[in-house]
């Protein structure tokens, strides 16, 4: 049975797909009627200019059939305008006086004819330019891909807004009713404990089920009193089949509650991504003792470094403040920083506002992650973390195009007010939706010795250094550095490269919840982390067979699929290891995990740059892929050695569901 909330979410997705497809078709017609003629006008401009030059030569007394350099001139025009397939100068008798290029295969190619006339207006020759329909069609298709991507962004924004409404407290009664109706349709007769027990729609259902549970309990007690073991066993089997005697704790909403606030906040930061380098470039003083490239990248470097360095201390600070308070303070700090960035005219002040925004960002990130881990049961943690990851990925997909438009329409500085507004909205949603903060007053600080001790937790070191670090290293090195550099070298435009790079986040958004749910269902987090590492790393090895855009697309798709498999189970495994840390130092382990991940982010481009210079694109990518594969295999072996070591410890040792001992 599909509930009202799930059903309407699905319906909105389908309706929006149809509506956005209709807009896409309208966009295609508009492009054909408006932009294609603008491309043809370019050919007319070239034709008029070339004809004018020929007319000048003839006016200067050069006979038509003695014109020199016609072919090289036409060839230079063709090279400069790739839409032009062929340029041909013919006299009035139709004889060719010079040509460049070749006619396209398409018989319906558009031709632009410009007359070359004498001063008295008498026609002397014609310049015939044939437009390459393939190039125009490529441009139109690229534009339609951009429009389709906007459709995906609109759909994702809609689903996040739906999640915001569905997760609101006002819908608890509806959720309770749906949960009971769904249980009955599955033949499950368990009791539900939630805030809606006394509501009029729910109470009659609960009353019947409670009566049944009371009878079941009485029957079991009676069978036990009689000593009828077989009857007791049969009644217990009935309980297992139907849920009688079981109290259902209800859905876990930890991640659902945080998702809208996190999405809004993360989108605030992502808005700045497309215009930040340009803004930094315009703000950098001319007399700066840094290279221009470094000055442009410095705001990004400062942000990343501040986020990375804040991970460990903020893991503990967030526990001490309480998750909601941590989120709210972090979002407020970031919002003020974005407003500061909007007003800043001095480059160094701008850098300072980026650093404070990073501090707010790190506190929000750590608090949101802590909330999800604190409020999810171990068996639900992978799925909950998948929701957390998805909110960040969706924000990463939706933010840049919206930020780009804001910056184009309002200016780069003013676009930061968009970020500030979103951060404030995220703050308000978090304040209203997250549970009251429960500060952990005695949350322990983390020392180097504690971290060393943490690394001795079962398989944690192998997980962090074999999987978490290489995963981020691979992502940044391949997707964000090597692929753009290589495709640019092959002559692809920035827009085409950007479209190819979208394969990774789109696959992540679509596949993370699916793989997280499979990992939970099959109780195989470690297996998914291992397989994910092998798929993502193995994908990079494909580049040894070629570097065509199709192979690059396959590599990015395998990277997306592999990381979608591993990202949520990996976080859940770390959280699980952290739970076993003595002395309440679990926050430190999570901080260490994120620090190692972000170190992978930071070192990826530098190492990839070095490898690219020394070994070339394919070998550099393959070497990084191989490192990821070896890391994943190392993680797998750490589980085996541990399991076999503990097998010798005796049959009484507890076995985790991951195949290793805990």
């Amino acid at each position: 049975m599909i509930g009202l909330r799930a059903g309407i979410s699905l319906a909105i997705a389908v309706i929006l797909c149809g509506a956005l497809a209709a807009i896409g078709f309208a966009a295609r017609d508009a492009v054909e009627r408006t932009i294609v003629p603008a491309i043809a006008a370019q050919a007319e401009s070239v034709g008029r200019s070339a004809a004018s030059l020929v007319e000048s030569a003839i006016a200067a007394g050069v006979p038509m059939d003695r014109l020199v350099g016609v072919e090289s001139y036409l060839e230079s025009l063709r090279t400069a305008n790739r839409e032009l397939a062929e340029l041909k100068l013919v006299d009035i008798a139709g004889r060719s006086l010079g040509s460049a290029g070749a006619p396209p295969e398409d018989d319906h190619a558009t031709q632009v004819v410009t007359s070359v006339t004498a001063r008295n207006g008498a026609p002397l020759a014609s310049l015939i330019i044939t437009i390459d329909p393939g190039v125009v069609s490529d441009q139109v298709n690229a534009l339609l891909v951009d429009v389709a991507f906007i459709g995906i962004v609109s759909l994702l924004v809609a689903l996040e807004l739906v999640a915001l409404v569905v997760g609101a407290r006002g819908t608890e009664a509806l959720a309770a009713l749906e949960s009971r109706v769904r249980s009955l349709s599955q033949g499950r007769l368990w009791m539900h404990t939630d805030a809606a027990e006394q509501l009029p729609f729910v109470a009659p259902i609960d009353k019947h089920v409670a009566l049944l549970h009371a009878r079941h309990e009485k029957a079991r007690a009676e069978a036990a009193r009689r000593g009828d073991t077989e009857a007791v066993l049969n009644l217990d089997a009935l309980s297992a089949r139907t849920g009688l005697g079981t109290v259902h704790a209800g859905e876990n909403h930890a991640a659902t509650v945080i998702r809208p606030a996190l999405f809004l906040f993360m989108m605030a930061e992502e808005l700045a991504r497309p215009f930040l380098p340009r803004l930094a470039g315009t703000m950098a003083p001319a007399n700066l003792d840094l290279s221009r490239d470094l000055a442009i990248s410095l705001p990004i470097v400062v942000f990343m470094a501040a986020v990375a360095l804040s991970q460990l201390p903020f893991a503990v600070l967030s526990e001490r403040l309480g998750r909601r308070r941590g989120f709210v303070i972090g979002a407020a700090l970031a919002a003020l920083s974005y407003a500061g960035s909007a007003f800043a005219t001095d480059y160094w002040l701008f850098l300072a506002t980026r650093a404070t925004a990073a501090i707010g960002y790190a506190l929000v990130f750590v608090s949101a992650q802590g909330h999800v881990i604190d409020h999810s049961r171990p068996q639900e943690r992978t799925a909950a973390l998948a929701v957390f990851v998805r909110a960040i990925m969706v924000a990463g997909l939706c933010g840049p195009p919206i930020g780009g438009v804001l910056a184009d329409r309002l200016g780069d500085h003013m676009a930061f007010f968009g970020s500030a507004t979103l951060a404030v909205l995220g703050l308000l949603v978090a304040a209203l939706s997250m549970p009251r903060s429960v500060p952990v007053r005695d949350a322990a600080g983390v020392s180097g010795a504690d971290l060393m001790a943490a690394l001795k937790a079962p398989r944690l070191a192998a997980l962090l250094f074999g999987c978490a670090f290489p995963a981020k290293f691979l992502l940044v090195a391949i997707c964000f550095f090597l692929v753009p550099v290589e495709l640019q070298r092959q002559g692809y435009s920035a827009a085409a490269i950007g479209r190819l790079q979208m394969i990774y986040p789109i696959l992540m958004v679509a596949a993370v919840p699916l793989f997280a749910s499979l990992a939970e269902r099959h109780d195989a987090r470690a297996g998914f982390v291992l397989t994910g590492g092998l798929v993502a790393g193995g994908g990079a090895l494909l580049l040894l067979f070629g570097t065509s855009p199709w192979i690059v697309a396959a590599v990015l798709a395998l990277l997306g699929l592999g990381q979608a498999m591993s990202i949520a189970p990996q976080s859940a495994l770390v959280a699980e290891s952290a739970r076993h840390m003595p002395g309440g130092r679990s926050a430190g382990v999570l901080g260490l995990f994120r620090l190692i991940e972000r170190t992978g982010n930071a070192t990826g481009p530098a190492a990839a740059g070095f490898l690219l210079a020394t070994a070339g694109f394919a070998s550099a990518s393959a070497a990084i892929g191989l490192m990821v594969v070896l890391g994943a295999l190392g993680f797998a072996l750490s589980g085996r050695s541990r399991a076999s070591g503990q097998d010798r410890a005796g049959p009484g040792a507890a076995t985790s569901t991951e195949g290793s001992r805990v």
Partner: protein
Amino acid sequence: MIRTSFGLILLFAVIAAACVAFGAYFSLVTLQTAHRKAVETRFGVTAERIVASAQTAAGLGIALPAQITLADLTRREARLDEAILSIDIIDTHDKVLFSSDPARITDSDGSRPANAVTRRIENDLAATIGRVVVRYNPGVLAEGESALEGELQTMAMPTLIGSAFATILIGVLLAAGLGRAAKRAADPSQWPRAARSALAEAEAAHAGVRGGERP
């Protein structure tokens, strides 16, 4: 509960409509940007032709202010396209050296006009020695932009309204289904088949224990 359901349905309809509007607006912005690019490429081609001439002369050792033939060239190129308002050759001190519009010569023009295409003129050492600025009639852009707006609006408005109504319709159907399911769930004799079967099994087992039989 009914109020909550209908409130939710209306909210979802607003979300659906807002997201269609969002998609349409961003599609329009994307197309307008592409249109501007296509239009400006045309003026860019003109600017690049002048840049090529100026750079060739500079390569032969003729300083930019001394390239007096550029005046004729700018006038000739400007005459060829009625959408061009002026073509200026500007030095590194923002002084207009040559222009298709004589009134603009010697004007100091450090501004970056909105409807203009600029290309740098470089010497053999790739140092900038000036720039060519082609100012064009904004009407060329406005015409295309309003055509795009009209085309997308024609499709977006009915799509937006249709999406909202479709969401309300499906929401009402789902809410009615949930209401019926809630009523049936309140009466065990009308429970879904799986639940009735579980109930029958449980009642048989409980009766068996009460009667001393094994379930």
